[in-house]
């Protein structure tokens, strides 16, 4: 029984450890996609956020300033993507790819200048994302250990669930949300009704970069304490997959990210003790994702105007 509770605690811990950065990034992706702009540059924006967050936290000593600046760095790249795709009507996939190349290249170059290395200097515990509820639970008991593993976690993890609710509210309960969804479906109709499509999309892509930047900062400021070129490897693309999985809805994407995190945790928990081949176990998250996509999710409906640049009639 103790083993089962322990393993369950680790599973939930892993779900959150893997899931938190993905959820931020997926929320970002939702913002962009739903307003009709394909953003595959999430990965590059996460890298920018991861690096800037760590560096700012290191120099200011304040994790929250670092976290915010991580978001702002992502936003800067988001603005670049928006400039290319929304203002200038560039191909969204190619611009996103350029962001993915520019982000890691630029931060490694800056890291070389600042630290004469591709890594940043490790953050001290005070510079790291604070943890909530540490030491509240009695870890000598099985139940206390379980609670500690699950709930004694980073502030950024708690914050992401708040972010999901806020994004959901903005999407479905505000006038702005309605307008941005309309821009993703039928921008020409919006324009005739007096909605500024370009401005709405621009804002959404910037917001997308901001959230992706926060996601990147989570990786380097919470579950590790240093930026390395390998810090962001593919999380951005998994987040995009989660958004498609969740049918472009923030709560759907949340479930997608948590499912991926849960399966990754399963990999760790099974890999340690059981006699199953690790190569097989490593496949679990991907196999489950494919299976769920085939069996349960059904057709994901892409916003109609997604990927099409909107050129205002003159």
């Amino acid at each position, binding site marked *: 029984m103790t083993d089962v509770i322990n393993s369950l605690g680790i599973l939930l811990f892993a779900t959150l*450890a893997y899931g938190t950065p993905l959820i931020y990034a997926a929320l970002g992706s939702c913002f962009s996609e739903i307003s009709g702009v394909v953003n595959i540059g999430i990965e590059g924006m996460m890298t920018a956020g991861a690096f800037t967050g760590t560096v700012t936290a290191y120099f200011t000593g304040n994790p929250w300033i670092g976290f915010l600046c991580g978001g702002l760095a992502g936003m800067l790249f988001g603005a670049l993507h928006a400039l290319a795709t929304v203002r200038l009507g560039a191909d969204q996939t190619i611009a996103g790819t*350029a962001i993915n190349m520019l982000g890691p290249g630029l931060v490694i170059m800056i890291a070389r200048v600042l630290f004469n290395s591709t890594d940043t200097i490790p953050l001290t515990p005070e510079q790291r994302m604070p943890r909530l509820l540490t030491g509240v639970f009695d870890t000598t008991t099985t139940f206390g250990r379980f609670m500690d593993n699950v709930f004694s976690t980073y502030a950024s993890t708690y914050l992401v669930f708040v972010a999901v609710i806020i994004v959901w509210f903005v999407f479905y309960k505000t006038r702005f949300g309605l307008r941005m969804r309309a821009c993703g479906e039928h921008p020409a109709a919006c324009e005739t009704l007096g909605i500024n499509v370009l401005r709405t999309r621009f804002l959404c892509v910037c917001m997308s970069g901001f959230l992706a930047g926060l996601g990147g900062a989570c990786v380097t400021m919470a579950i590790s304490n240093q930026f390395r070129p390998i810090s962001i490897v593919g999380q951005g693309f998994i987040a995009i997959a989660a958004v498609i999985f969740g049918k472009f809805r923030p709560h759907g994407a949340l479930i997608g990210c948590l499912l991926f995190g849960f399966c990754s945790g399963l990999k760790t928990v099974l890999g340690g003790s059981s006699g199953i081949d690790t190569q097989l176990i490593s496949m679990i998250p991907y196999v489950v994702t494919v299976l769920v996509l085939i069996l349960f999710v059904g057709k994901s409906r892409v916003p109609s105007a997604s990927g099409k640049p909107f050129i205002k009639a003159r």
Partner: protein
Amino acid sequence: MKKILALTLSLCLILGLAACGGKTEPTTTAAPETTKAQDQTTAAPETTKAPETTAAPAAKIKVGMVTDVGGVNDQSFNQTSWEGLQALAAEDSSFEVKYLESKTDADYQTNINTFIDDGYDLIICVGYMLADATKEAAEANPNQKFAIIDDSTCAELPNVACLMFAQEQASYLVGLVAGSVTKSKTVGYVQGMVSDTMNLFGIGYITGVLEVCPDAQVLQYNANNFGDIPGGNTAAKDMITKGADVIYHAAGGTGMGVINACDEAGIWAIGVDTDQSPLAPEHVITSAMKRVDVASQDISKAVKDGKFTAGVHLYDLSNGGVDLAPTRTHIPAEVLQLVEEKKAAIIAGQFKVPTTVDECPAFTLK
């Protein structure tokens, strides 16, 4: 409109490419590049063109390094080796160093040939993945000197130096430390991949732990990934939940997650390859170091002094090729003394750390 679009796109791409190039450029240090250009353009009257090296031999020793697909920023042997060469070139101006990155397996041969064509004195191939390409090039160019890291299959060739590291010895020493400081008699071990080379880390570590604490339990985990930070985090958390109070990792980037989890839980972590104490100064008790930089420097110096020898060059405790990390403030004095005794025994040949899974039944990863 179209023009602006095209302009932005190309600008984006150029910026992107420039930035990607930036990854490698700043390190190649403009100086050797330009001197190389000078050498080439003024090949004939080179004696007049080298006023700064009046006393030194006129020709520079050119050392080329070919990375494996990990690239030069891999946080592992490619990077360490390159840093070693850079340091060498900085302190001794008679060396000229350069690296070529391999993006795919197909680049190994091309990169090696580029160095051969440019007349390099020594070509260092980093990693066993380059073994076949090195062998082929070495057979075709018997007068070209090569060195290969972590591979001994080219040992019989007369022009290849195989730089091997006794990973199990350093791992054994950190195992002694882990076995001595554990209070719960439960220690953890996270490995990045199961292979004969990687297993040496685990075999050495477990042998060390069990030697000082025979009834210790060693929790083992194969991450099957060198870049999975949350995975390392989770594995360590799992071990901590099961009572581990020291965890050693040989798992590259995955290990960052391991060290972070140990730091937060307030237990000991043991690093690998480099001195990882800065990652968590309060909780990294030691690291198992592997001096790829020293090996690269040694072989380059040997070429300069005309003392290059082919065959296997083993870097182990006896020549400082592997060792405990220099940061030792957390290790109790009596444990350090034990480590030094065992180290002396290994150097003297009185004890040999096992290297195969058969000799270490407690190692269970597969």
